[in-house]
């Protein structure tokens, strides 16, 4: 639910990172925070369990500059990935404007990716949002594991599993190393802004 403030010439947009547990959603935000912390006043907010897993959400405000004279303030959120936290996951999706789906490239996480995407679709449906209508970007994370000899899914398989009908933009990435993290979020923001740009005065 983007909010357009005509007085301060500001647009506030909510972008949520979703995906299976331990897939790298928080690592994405931590990398982004490490790159932008020198130019933002806020800290990254994390509500975690004692075991350092996301309990509710991580939050990071991210500014991208101006579009059509409007300053774009993007609020980046993650949701908890673990299946049992669906109630809180659903809450964070309220008012979402765009999604980054962080999929885990490890071979043994293939089913988890599909389950998480189906769960996202169901949760969006709860808010009367069709996943096919919402700005969405896929990130196939942990590609760096291949260099350590850990079997990973090939991109074609992941595209077929997750993106065959949605046909959303997708990136291979390593959130841990920072590879393609910024391009992923920039693409997500630009796709989201295209969706709401026509509504700007």
């Amino acid at each position: 639910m983007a909010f357009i403030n005509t007085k301060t010439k500001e647009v506030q947009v909510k972008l949520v990172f979703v995906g299976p547990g331990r897939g790298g959603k928080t690592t994405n935000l931590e990398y982004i925070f490490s790159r932008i912390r020198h130019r933002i006043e806020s800290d990254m907010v994390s509500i975690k369990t004692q075991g350092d897993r996301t309990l509710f959400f991580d939050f990071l405000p991210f500014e991208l500059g101006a579009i059509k004279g409007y300053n774009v303030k993007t609020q980046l959120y993650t949701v908890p990935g673990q299946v049992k936290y669906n109630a809180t996951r659903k809450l964070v999706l309220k008012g979402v404007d765009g999604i980054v789906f962080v999929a885990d490239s490890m071979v043994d996480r293939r089913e988890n990716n599909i389950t998480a995407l189906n769960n996202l679709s169901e949760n969006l449906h709860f808010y009367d949002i069709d996943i096919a209508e919402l700005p969405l970007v896929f990130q196939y994370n942990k590609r760096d594991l291949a260099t350590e000899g850990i079997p990973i899914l090939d991109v074609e398989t992941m595209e077929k599993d997750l993106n065959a009908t949605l046909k959303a933009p997708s990136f291979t990435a390593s959130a841990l190393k920072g590879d393609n993290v910024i391009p992923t979020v920039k693409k997500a923001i630009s796709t989201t802004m295209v969706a709401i740009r026509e509504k700007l005065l």
Partner: protein
Amino acid sequence: MSYILDQEQLDGLEEALTTDLMTLGIQSVILIDMAGNVIVNLDDGKVRHDVYSLAALAAGNFGAVSAMASIIGEEEFSLLFHKGKSENINFTKIMDDFLLVSIFGNDVSLGYLRLKIDEVIKKVKVLIEQTRST
């Protein structure tokens, strides 16, 4: 979905919140939506909170409390209050999608504040109902 508030509405919201709440001597008033966006942010000039983080947490907190209400068979808990040693926070829901967050010290009477909040909410509702949704 997105929505737009024009200058007249925002000026009206600021004026109402300033006249009815800030003049009570409270520290700050933040009007947010349930997605965590900040609509109006007023303070007494003495504090400098991280308003965007506060809004994200307030929306999440209120959402969690509403979900708890639903589990125990309540439709909602429409207001929420957290008491600190010297500062306190009061949350009041406005219609389905908005939340008024008031931060105030112990020198302000909670009862009187709630009375004034009830009054200002009527004005806020009128202003927000003119909003253009897209």
